[in-house]
């Protein structure tokens, strides 16, 4: 008997789930229904729908083939390719006999240089195989967002202290929606390409770290200013050689340090953002660091590498404890209260819990135990659910956990309780999309007082707030 069979039934064909009110699963008509008939808790929340805004395309690698070639002379062609795509691409253009018909000597020289360069890069990849993929491919490969390159919402992040959400859209702009004001600030600058992650600085109202291909951009958006497009003078680009593309940024809960990870770099950087200095934390085994997660009390950091190795860093001494996952790299991890960590490996329908127990002798033991089996099953309505895990989120109080699956279009929400060193995971409810919507990414609101509020970005560009409300008296 799978845990999914004890979930409440899915809403009917024309219906969708709106919220959960004190154990009552509230569904309504997908087209005419409105969440305000059930609850006012999200009345002031910003309404986000990304498709309504027109995206203007940037010349990314996917759509560069759309543009029609113009006949330029050879030198101009080579220089423009050099400027846009780099030296090696320019060499290959010069060496290509179909393009370069004018000077065969140049073509021959270029082809020889290219051969040498290829040998060198092959040798480099032999030494460091994780560098093989280029920027956006690495991000897409390690991203916890489904189809990161194509979906309208690349990632989202709630502010830790106030009702404010940042959404990175497919055109690599970051929109900041706020509950009190109606306008939307769009953060955009030239260096901001291939946004992989967002994170608001705790203990600050205005600072947002954006992980993108070149490095980390820290925006300072004054909440009192009414600019819809803050100038790029409010942004600071933090970058370092070899640390690209950035696949994850995360602030310490104390608000003083920022960690950036790159899937192609074996060291993760700890930034002092005001002084713009970084200290690398480097451990070679395991390859690039994919993402990092701070525990609530900032005493520990979980980092996942691109291989089976993951590490738990202690922030007093800055030394790691090395762990190995079974089979695959860790795709998702989240900390809960009392320093419990839940994590899941790629391609495996199993959630593990990592708990630290202090013994009477003062020493601590840490062990990983399987906590939840989410093997793929078919519900009575015929909908498949479960299977390999794509992403997990735990709400800040540690009572609800949401999960995305690689092969299912449902969002599963679980109740979690941690009493007497025992973690108990119970079914709560499913969240379904309207029509053929697929969930892309999600996040729990950080300052929701009535329970938990899960925000889900659907493939249609709709962003749904799904509140789970409970009152203590109930």
């Amino acid at each position, binding site marked *: 008997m799978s845990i999914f069979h004890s979930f409440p039934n899915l809403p009917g064909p024309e219906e969708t789930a709106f919220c959960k009110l004190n154990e009552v699963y509230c569904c309504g008509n997908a087209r005419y229904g409105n969440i305000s008939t059930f609850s006012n808790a999200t009345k002031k929340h910003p309404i986000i729908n990304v498709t309504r805004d027109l995206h203007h395309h940037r010349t990314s690698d996917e759509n560069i083939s759309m543009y029609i070639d113009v006949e330029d002379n050879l030198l101009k062609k080579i220089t423009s390719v050099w400027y846009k795509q780099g030296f090696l691409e320019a060499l290959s253009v010069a060496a290509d006999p179909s393009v370069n018909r004018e000077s065969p000597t140049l073509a021959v020289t270029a082809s020889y240089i290219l051969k040498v360069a290829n040998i060198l890069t092959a040798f480099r990849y032999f030494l460091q195989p994780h560098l093989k993929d280029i920027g956006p491919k690495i991000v897409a490969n390690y991203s916890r967002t489904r189809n990161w390159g194509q979906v309208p919402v690349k990632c989202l992040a709630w502010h830790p202290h106030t009702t404010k959400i940042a959404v990175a859209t497919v055109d690599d702009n970051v929109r900041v929606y706020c509950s009190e004001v109606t306008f939307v600030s769009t953060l955009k600058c030239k260096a901001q390409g291939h946004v992989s992650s967002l994170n608001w600085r705790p203990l600050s*109202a205005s600072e947002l770290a954006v992980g993108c291909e070149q490095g980390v951009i820290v925006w300072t958006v004054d909440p009192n200013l009414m600019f819809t497009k803050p100038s790029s003078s409010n942004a600071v680009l933090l970058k370092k050689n070899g640390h690209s593309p950035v696949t994850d940024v995360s602030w310490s809960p104390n608000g003083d340090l920022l960690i950036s990870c790159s899937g192609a770099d074996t060291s993760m950087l700890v930034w002092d*953002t005001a002084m713009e200095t970084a200290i690398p934390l480097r451990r070679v085994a395991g390859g690039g660091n994919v993402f990092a997660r701070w525990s609530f009390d900032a005493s520990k950091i979980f980092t996942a590498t691109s291989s089976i190795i993951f590490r738990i860093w202690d922030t007093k001494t800055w030394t790691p404890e090395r762990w190995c996952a079974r089979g695959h790299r860790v795709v998702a991890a989240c900390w809960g209260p009392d320093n419990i960590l839940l994590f899941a490996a790629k391609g495996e329908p199993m959630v593990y819990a990592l708990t630290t127990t202090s013994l009477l002798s003062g020493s601590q033991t840490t062990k990983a135990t399987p906590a939840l089996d989410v093997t793929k099953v078919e519900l009575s309505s015929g909908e498949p659910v479960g299977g390999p895990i794509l992403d997990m989120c735990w709400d800040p109080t540690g009572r609800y956990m949401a999960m995305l699956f690689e092969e299912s279009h449902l969002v599963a929400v679980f109740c979690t309780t941690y009493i007497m060193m025992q973690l108990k995971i119970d079914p709560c409810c499913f969240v379904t999309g309207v029509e053929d919507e697929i969930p892309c990414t999600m996040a729990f609101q950080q300052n929701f007082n009535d329970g938990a509020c899960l925000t889900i970005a659907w493939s249609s560009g709709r962003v749904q707030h799904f509140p789970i409300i409970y009152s203590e008296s109930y």
Partner: protein
Amino acid sequence: MDVTCDIFSKRLIISVLWNIGLQAVIAVMLVGFIQIDILHPVSWISSSINDVFGWKMSINIVLLGLVSFFQAYIYGCYYVKPLPKYFTRFSMFLSLFCTQNIIFSILYALSGYFTMSLYSSLAKSNFNTLKKICENYDGQCLLEQSLFLQMGGMWMGLYYFLNAHIFSPTTLTFPHIYQDKFQQIKLAIHSILSCGFKNSIIPVVYYCIFYYFWGHKPRNVVSDVYGLYLEDKPLDNILNLFGSGIWIGLWFYTSLFLISVYAMRTVFNIVLTEPMKFPIESSKKLTLHKAIAQKSQFNGYLGTQDLKIMSLTDTVRRKEIFTLSQPGGHPRNWNNLLQECLKIVNDFSKELDSINGDMKPVEIEMLPKRPGSSITPKSTLYTGNLRNMAYSPQLHELKEHNKNKSEDTLLSAIKEEFNILVQRIRQKPGISYLFGELTDTRLKFLLMQAQPVMWTCEGLAFIAAASLKEDKYGVVQTDLPIVISTLINLKQNLDKLTKPGLVPRKHILNDSFALKMKSALLSSVKLSIYKIVITFSKYIHEIPLDPDVQIAIQPFLICKEA
């Protein structure tokens, strides 16, 4: 030596020992590298080992030790003293020629000479002696290449000294996280090597140019003194210089010299900036509040850094702060600590205030009086009411001082005339260039010492936040208002610096380091206020706060303060 310098000198000695170890490793690697012989690995290894354990090597190690003692002494002299104040070009210029700098430059030239000749002797080159037996004449001839190299060594020592100590300020920068020492050295090695080889190109070029113009003078002097003949072609000819290939040697040895100096510097930085745990109460050791009291000194830095680390991670010592003293029941630990912390923050905001005060006349004109404003006209300073919260005695002095000024006596009149005359002379173009106060120097000077202030603010805020759960007796809660108002006061003084239009040209910063410092300070003060306000947000109305402070924390409560 008293307790205060003890920590510093102990650490210097440790760093010298580390340094000698590291230098020995570099030397051994050099020996192995130079004798590399892939075809005969056994003989390569055996001859390297022979050299490593030979007498030459041990003498080298001793000499390297001496050199690193030199360096430690120099670093010590720079770091222990507070930063010198130079506000005019003239005083800056004079300070270049103080005896300390002259002695140091000689020491550096010597150490450059030593290191260079050490490495060249390790590399078994024949450029260690100035003389050789002539081929054509009967007698001894000058080996100009070795003269070139040895003078080059001195040149590099001087060059490094000028670059590292005179033209850039020597301040100790504490890293924001502290890793294991080995790990740090491992991380630094790559950049040390690449910087060493890269940065050595420019001084070599300078030296070659220098030698081209003035090389014949030392050559003549040396050959006259030792009575040597000149046999080879002179090196102050471009073709000869390039043909002899000695410049490659010079570049290689310079790189080695720079690598060894950078390695020393890195080791000193790593050892000196290691965080230290001070006890909260102790009769023998230096306690935390006493360490903090020695502000702007090395111990002050360590103390405030420890305050921050303790407030974030160390529950045991925090508990000690929240306890009451055993006979008496006074929160002595907390009171001592709070007093020193507030002193640091208040002193800093006072300095800022005085810098802001320079533009007071402008400000009064620009600020329209608010109708029904609660600020009474008698408060001369902008933040009058807030200053009173800090019980600043200086304020009263300042007021009285203003009153005394109005007394009209002959003496004061003459003084005034004289001052006007001095001012007028100062305004003359050439003189104002030399003696006029440089723009932004005072603010820059102040901001350079802002690091302990940041740590103190954050430390105070996090202790206060931790007190909500850990403080059984409510020790900290009684002092919350004064902590909040002190932080708000500092924040307002900092805000005045950034307000456009109010800052006179004198205080516009154009130094990127100082600018970063300013933003770092501002963000850490805001972080501290946020930490307290968010932690106590439910109880904030129960804290007895001054109305002005209450208004000032409103934007923090609703998360609207940028």
